[in-house]
């Protein structure tokens, strides 16, 4: 026995020695033999399974090291997220008995989904062979074998896995987690500091002290709503397990699972599916922390990797949920909730994220295909919130239109559930504290088989999703608003108006709803009423300039559309109050082009693009301005950018065709016009323009066909008529 300096008080040390002297001479408790190392026999022992063949005496070098390197070392290495390293023989021997216990119980490696119920990527489930092998090795007293044949240990770098990020966001105030007590759920707000939009192809989260972080989830707060909700203490973090953020007033469903767990620090998005950060966005880093026994400081950082390419595919997160039905009696061990939804479009399911708190036990998600076949999407038999994760499918799961998604969650609120936060159990309802419950099954989906030029299928999906939510909670304001917005987005204005009115009845002075209702009225043709609503919205916003941006923009646009001269002044007021509103700058630029104030227009449109480079409209208008200045090359460049951003927009291709024709590139101009007409077939002007271009390149029969096509669409089309007549006299 050794004394540890600087720890023991002198008196304590003396007592210790005294105690040991007693011990040595004690006859009551003489030296006992060391407890035997052999673990007790287990009924599921190796020999029983004929399918598992093991080497007669497994050794670390030949058999065990490779299993540990492949399945455990990603977390269990020095500095890794696991509590100890498993890179050397000494490590493996030290932890051998625990390795056997946790692999037999399947606590490790962490993997909840039942095999055969969803075909997932990055499966962490250990094979029966490997489990049996570890067990046999431990039973055989963990022999090392020949170190010369051991595989080389994997190498882990303490730096960013993907090299230096393009942007690193840090939590402004490091958080100290106390050594004791229960788990902590904390939300840190990381404002996006740049003044232009970027697309993120990958992200890495470095929690600082990964050993205390169970998992972390990032939510994009597009409107910085949480920061506004907690103006005084957002910098030190906000507690809570699930938070709701305000998604803003625009339909912007592009969404990704940004989920960190110890073995996947870098989140690399599939090709063509980067996510987006705009100026003013916040990242909310939601962390589940587990005290380690000592106070730990957490100074998380998030590394972002940019790509210049906007997304080619925009996935969306949708959910089944039954929070409304969660009212779990104390002691009930079998409380079940279910939800289902019929898909209105074909889609690929990319990933799934089941979520409940401590009472969830059995969680199932499946689809009934239109032909009646059942397709499992996930089954977790022993839910454990500590090991929750997002699961991505190895291949996207195609679910055709008409498929019914299902979820069925079972909760155990008895005292037999060791995770139960209450002793004795109490009645539990839905809520975002960890002792409340939740019933969510999230899917990341990508609509497929979309016709070119068709409205965004995600709007129809959103409509269906919100209608489904409203069947359960008919007065849920978020669902009412989102439903109305999805209807308006699809151009179903006459349906959208009453839906917004219904939401407005619950909060009559809501700036956003008033604005959206105005926009729907405008869409339905009642523009005077619309402008009234916009004015009420501006009034309701009062002195809060930022919330008045949208109604001011809509009012100015409406006035512009209806030829009202006050539009210009309205846009100027808005740009002054909302200098980062790229769309307002674009609107102002457009008015200036029409008033021949081209220099100012270029200035405002360039500013708009600096704020939001992916705003196609701004590029289009800037092209017009350059056209007005006679700078056709710049106009061409802007239109090409616009076409890249909105490849399905016929007008942009038409404009491109016009500019190309003016620069003398007639054949390219013809190609662009044909592209435009493929997208918008019944455009008589477009056919007439095509005919003109074809006539100028001497393709007379094609030109005649084009003019005739225009006249079939519009028999009175004057230019097409005279062009056709001129063509016939030329022949």
């Amino acid at each position: 026995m050794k004394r540890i300096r600087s720890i023991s008080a002198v008196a304590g040390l003396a007592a210790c020695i005294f105690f040991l002297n007693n011990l040595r001479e004690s006859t009551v408790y003489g030296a006992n033999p060391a407890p035997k190392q052999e673990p007790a026999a287990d009924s599921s022992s190796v020999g029983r399974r004929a399918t598992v063949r093991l080497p007669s005496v497994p050794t670390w070098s030949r058999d065990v090291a490779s299993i540990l390197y492949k399945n455990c070392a990603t977390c269990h290495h020095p500095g890794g997220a696991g509590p100890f390293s498993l890179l050397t023989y000494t490590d493996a021997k030290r932890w051998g008995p625990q390795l056997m216990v946790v692999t037999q119980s399947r606590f490790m490696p962490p993997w909840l989904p039942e095999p055969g119920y969803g075909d997932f990527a990055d499966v962490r489930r250990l094979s029966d062979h490997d489990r049996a092998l570890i067990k046999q090795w431990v039973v055989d007293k963990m022999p090392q074998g020949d170190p010369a044949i051991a595989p080389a240990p994997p190498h882990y770098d303490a730096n960013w896995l993907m090299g230096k990020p393009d942007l690193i966001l840090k939590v402004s105030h490091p958080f100290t987690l106390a050594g004791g007590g229960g788990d902590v759920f904390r939300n840190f707000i990381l404002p996006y500091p740049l003044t232009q939009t970027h697309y993120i192809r990958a992200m890495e989260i470095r929690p600082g002290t990964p050993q205390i972080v169970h998992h972390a989830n990032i939510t994009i707060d597009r409107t910085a709503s949480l920061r506004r909700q907690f103006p005084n203490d957002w910098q030190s973090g906000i507690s809570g397990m699930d938070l709701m953020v305000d998604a803003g007033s625009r339909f912007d469903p592009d969404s990704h699972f940004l989920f960190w767990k110890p073995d996947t620090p870098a989140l690399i998005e599939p090709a063509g599916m980067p996510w987006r950060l705009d100026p003013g966005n916040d990242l909310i880093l939601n962390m589940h922390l587990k005290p380690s026994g000592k106070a730990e400081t957490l100074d998380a950082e998030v590394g972002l990797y940019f790509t210049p390419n906007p997304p080619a595919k925009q996935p969306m997160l949708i959910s089944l949920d039954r929070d409304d039905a969660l009212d779990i009696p104390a002691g009930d061990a079998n409380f079940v909730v279910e939800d289902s939804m019929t898909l209105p479009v074909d889609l690929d399911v990319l990933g799934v994220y089941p979520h409940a708190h401590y009472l969830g036990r059995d969680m199932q998600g499946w689809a009934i295909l239109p032909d009646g076949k059942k397709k499992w999407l996930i089954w977790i038999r022993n839910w454990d919130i500590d090991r929750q994760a997002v699961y991505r499918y190895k291949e996207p799961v195609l679910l055709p239109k008409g498929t019914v998604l299902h979820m069925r969650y079972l909760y155990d609120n008895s005292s037999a559930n060791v995770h139960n936060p209450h002793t004795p159990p109490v009645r539990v309802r839905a809520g975002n504290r960890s002792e409340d419950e939740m019933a969510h099954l999230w899917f990341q989906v990508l609509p497929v088989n979309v016709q070119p030029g068709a409205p965004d299928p995600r709007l129809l999906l959103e409509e269906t999703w919100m209608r489904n939510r409203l069947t359960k909670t008919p007065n849920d304001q978020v669902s009412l608003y989102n439903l109305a917005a999805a209807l308006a987005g699809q151009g179903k204005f006459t349906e959208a108006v009453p839906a917004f009115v219904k939401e407005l009845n619950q909060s009559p002075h809501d700036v956003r709803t008033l604005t959206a209702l105005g926009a729907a009225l405008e869409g339905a043709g009642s523009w005077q009423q619309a402008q009234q609503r916009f004015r009420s919205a501006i009034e309701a916003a009062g002195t809060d300039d930022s919330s008045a941006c949208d109604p001011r923009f809509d009012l100015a646009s409406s006035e512009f559309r209806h030829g009202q001269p006050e539009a210009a002044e309205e846009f100027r007021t808005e740009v002054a109050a909302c200098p980062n509103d790229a769309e307002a700058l674009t609107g102002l630029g457009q008015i200036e082009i029409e008033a021949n104030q081209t220099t100012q227009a270029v200035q405002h449109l360039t500013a708009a693009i600096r704020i939001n480079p992916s705003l196609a409209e701004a590029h289009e208008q800037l092209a017009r301005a350059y056209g007005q200045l006679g700078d056709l090359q710049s106009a061409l460049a802007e239109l090409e950018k616009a076409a890249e951003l909105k490849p399905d927009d016929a007008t942009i291709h038409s404009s491109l065709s016009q500019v190309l024709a003016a620069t003398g590139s007639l054949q390219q101009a013809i190609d662009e016009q044909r592209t435009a007409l493929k997208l918008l077939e019944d455009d008589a002007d477009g056919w007439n323009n095509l005919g003109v271009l074809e006539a100028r390149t001497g393709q007379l029969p094609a030109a005649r066909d084009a003019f005739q096509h225009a006249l079939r669409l519009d028999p009175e089309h004057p230019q097409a008529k005279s062009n056709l007549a001129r063509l016939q006299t030329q022949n």
Partner: protein
Amino acid sequence: MVLIFAASDCPISNRYVPEIARLNREFTKQGVRIWWVFPNPEDNSSTVAEHNHAFAITEPTVLDTRQYLVHLAHVTTTPEAAVFTSNGDVLREVYRGRIDDRYFSIGQERPQPQQHDLEAAISAALADKPVPQSGGPPVGCSIVYLQK
């Protein structure tokens, strides 16, 4: 006399540091002496000193390099507690086992403990009442026994 068997590299053992500090505060005035015991061969004086500094451990600590205390107390796990009463020179182990029921098994953990087994045992021993025994097996890391 209470011995808490621990290992500097065992996460579950470490998570009990604040709980042992609490018990020490609670019982120290009543003459109870709580000791940390580090029995594993790799826990030498410098690793444990560093560990105790990091975890701000103020209770007296011993290295059981020969594992006499392990044999005396019949413990197998870190963390595991042993409570002794003494009558003159004769020591009697009145409790051996888990600190509380927070861990059901490795990976099965209650949000808060419901039964404070060690606390109940100490209280009973102080009151000269029959000492209730541990309600379940200790959960944590096996003690690494010395090679014989």
